[in-house]
């Protein structure tokens, strides 16, 4: 179901933003490779990026929620429920990560809590979140491919350079 206010320029921006979000999520999922400090700051940076992602898809979210219990294909309904679970899992991973943080909390002047429960919760929720992202990407792959097929013609026109 396309969002009511979809335009080629808006779609191009959305695709770029999605690529940025996906790249940051992959980087944040590799604390052994990036180092704990980078992992924590990238994860904090993910919060505004995800918020903008949700704002960009707001029309789709509202339109799908309104039709949730009426005329909606099963795939779209599943997609919507999956996105909601993904959102909750993202918050669970972020909250548990902040509570077991070793860099971000001390950097803002708060003591680091060494809580075994939240550390375990972070590992579980982050692993489940990463697997859920794989399914989320698969569910939206047709939109991504359709956008890529349209090519640069639909991309926003760059400002002309002054001669």
């Amino acid at each position, binding site marked *: 179901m396309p969002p009511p206010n979809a335009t080629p320029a808006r779609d191009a921006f959305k695709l770029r933003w999605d690529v940025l979000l996906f790249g940051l999520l992959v980087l944040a*999922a590799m604390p052994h*490779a990036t180092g704990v400090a980078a992992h924590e700051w990238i994860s904090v940076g993910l919060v505004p990026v995800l918020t903008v992602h949700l704002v960009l898809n707001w029309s789709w979210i509202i339109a799908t929620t309104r039709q949730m219990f009426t005329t909606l294909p099963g795939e779209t309904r599943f997609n919507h429920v999956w996105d909601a679970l993904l959102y909750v899992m993202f*918050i669970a991973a972020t909250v*548990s990560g902040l509570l077991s943080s070793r860099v971000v909390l001390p950097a803002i002047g708060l003591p680091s809590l060494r809580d*075994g*429960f939240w550390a375990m919760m972070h590992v579980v929720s982050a692993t489940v979140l990463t697997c859920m*992202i*794989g*399914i989320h990407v*698969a569910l939206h792959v047709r939109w991504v491919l359709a956008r890529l097929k349209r090519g640069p013609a639909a991309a926003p026109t760059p400002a002309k350079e002054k001669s």
Partner: protein
Amino acid sequence: MIQHLRRGIFILLASVVVALVILQLGNLGWAERMRVIDQDKQLARAKYQHSHKAPERRPGPPRSTSQRYARGFVQVVVFEIGLPCAATLGLLAYTRCKRARP
């Protein structure tokens, strides 16, 4: 622009509400049990390290950053994201194919 800002604030407020609900998990009985198990493990590890003092060794050469990166990348992108993605695509293709053929 103001409309987008309002939506963003609404999303952040909803996130705070969900976060507060998730924080309540820490007060449950099984969370306390997990903390006790974790503390017991740490105590046992400390006792073991105290009784089996390892001989002093010189630290080895630092591990290559690219090797560590490659390992993390494969684990995350191939196993954690790629496999569920491929399985879902296969399942979607199968259901679409089944629906197309009556």
